[in-house]
């Protein structure tokens, strides 16, 4: 009796489990569409005619293909210049970040380093407490870094979190190698550049990519410190076109919008696409390295 009951129950469970699997597969497909749809929709709208946009007929694919939005955007806004600015800032910030963080983390890893404890505490404090918007703004002003890319590169170059992750990564490299090199008369600078740096490529790839994307995506610092319109990064151009007077200053685009040929979303979403595209291009690389990065980060805890 007990046995039959058990088999029956087991069968029911299998049936339920099978149904659960099917529902889960469908649910995850739906969720994936929710993640992707906004991207597809923005791309489609940027390429569709005003007639289709204003009647709400554009969803997954462009309707009545039209590239005028992109034309106007690249003609009337200096997008290439903004790209160049952003690349300079991102590369500069990432280089300063990688170099300074590696050097500091290497020194702090040494068990007998004289400032080890002091620096650990000093960095921990910055994780929980900071000066805030205005004192930093005044500092940048006093250093005469307004309208200089250094204002976007230097303030966040060294973060406590990165230093701690680097340090724990370096600790994972066997100290015997270091000591052996030292017997051969290698200096700390040499040990860092010839042993630790080559062994930490995965770390640098991960944090380098994060830094590049982080800088590419930030606008707030530029809003505070960069007034010169020729020095603005790409996010500020997008902000100007969607949330400020950028679009109304584009006379040809305005004319086309006035005629009903073009929708303002053509230009705005073209700019969104132009802003997102580079990130999506390096996404496969990000994808490859970030799992590693997350593991490295978890070691710290």
């Amino acid at each position, binding site marked *: 009796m007990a046995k039959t009951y058990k088999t029956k129950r087991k069968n029911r469970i299998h049936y339920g489990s099978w149904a659960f699997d099917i529902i889960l597969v469908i649910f995850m497909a739906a969720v994936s569409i929710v993640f992707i749809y906004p991207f597809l929709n923005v791309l489609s709208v940027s390429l569709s005619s005003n007639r289709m946009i204003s009647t709400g007929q554009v969803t997954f694919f462009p309707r009545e293909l039209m590239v005028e939005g992109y034309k106007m955007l690249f003609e009337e806004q200096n997008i290439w210049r903004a790209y160049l600015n952003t690349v300079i800032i991102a590369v500069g910030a990432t280089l300063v970040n990688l170099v300074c963080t590696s050097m500091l983390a290497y020194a702090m890893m040494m068990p007998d380093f004289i400032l080890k404890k002091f620096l650990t505490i000093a960095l921990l404090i910055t994780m929980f407490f900071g000066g805030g918007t205005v004192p930093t703004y005044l500092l940048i002003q006093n250093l005469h870094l307004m309208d200089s890319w250094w204002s976007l590169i230097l303030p966040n170059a060294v973060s406590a979190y990165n230093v701690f992750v680097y340090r724990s990564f370096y600790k994972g490299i066997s100290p015997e190698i270091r*000591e052996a090199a030292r017997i051969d008369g290698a200096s700390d600078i040499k040990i860092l550049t010839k042993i630790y740096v080559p062994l930490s490529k995965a770390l640098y790839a991960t944090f380098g990519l994060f830094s590049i994307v982080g800088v590419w995506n930030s606008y707030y610092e530029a809003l505070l410190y960069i007034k010169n319109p020729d020095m603005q990064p790409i996010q500020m151009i997008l902000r100007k076109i969607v949330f400020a007077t950028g679009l109304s200053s584009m006379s040809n685009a305005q004319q086309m919008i006035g005629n009903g040929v073009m929708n303002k979303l053509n230009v705005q979403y073209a700019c969104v696409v132009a802003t997102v595209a580079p990130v999506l291009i390096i996404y496969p690389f990000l994808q490859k390295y970030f799992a590693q990065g997350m593991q490295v980060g978890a070691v710290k805890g």
Partner: protein
Amino acid sequence: MKRQKTGIAAAVSPGKKQSLMGKLYNQRQLLLLALPGILLVFIFKYIPIYGILISFKDYSAAKGVWGSDWLNPIWENFSRFFKNVNSGQIIWNTFKVGAMTLLFTFPTPIIFALLLNELKGKWYKKTVQTISYLPHFISVVVICSMLNGFGSTTGLFNDIREFFGLARVDMNSGGTYFLLEYVGSAVWQGVGWGSIIYLAALSNVDTTLYDVANIDGANRWQKIKNIAWPTIRPTTTILLIMNVGTVMNADFTKILLMQNDTNRSQLDTISTFVYQKGIVEGQFSYSTAVNLFLSVICFILVFGTNAITRKLDPDNSLW
């Protein structure tokens, strides 16, 4: 530590009795390596902390932080903020946005990770994961540009409302709909990325536990409840502490973008108020004081939640 003091390491690295100067000399290379990082942290993290002093002073650029006159009474900026008719609303907004964000962005990655973990088919699972991380890499300006269209009276949200026979509303004008938009986009952006850490924990689960559970005839729900959930519980606790600490620190750059003159009073949070008063209106001292008030609350929240956790669950507290 021990290894350092034996053999060759001891001969090279400084001994116990070395003088401070000798030690400094021996470690000159390490000090040199650390110097750029130390300078950057000192200049860009510590000088602004020192700059907080101006919240108690009448800051003038000519006199500098130290030379500016002290306010009389010294807490004048703080009492001014609390006397402001809007301060209650601003503090409430900050809390409301932060709390709602936490309430929805914290559990969703956990649920998503648990469901992904149940998903059969390696390829399919990986594809869903890859897609789910994508929104994380999108900038706040892009998100807000999308929301601008999505939440407008002709946007998708209102198309759905109309489909269900509801009237069209402008989400971007503030109120509950703005909150929905704000929190919804935060969930959309964070759910996939946030699940990584839980999935990593789940991948370490002992598979024999599942074999045993199968023999015992446990159903899916029982397996999730008794195997998967206990595996990620410690991670959950730690992340919860860290997140509660940031409840008053919601991403204000998003609000800053979506604010305009018509919805400002409704959308003002402490951080946007700080920006408006300090950077736009140039009231440096007042703005810094309001920001200090926020920093202190955040600080108390982080340490408070950690203290509570240490009492309840000492193994999982942050420190």
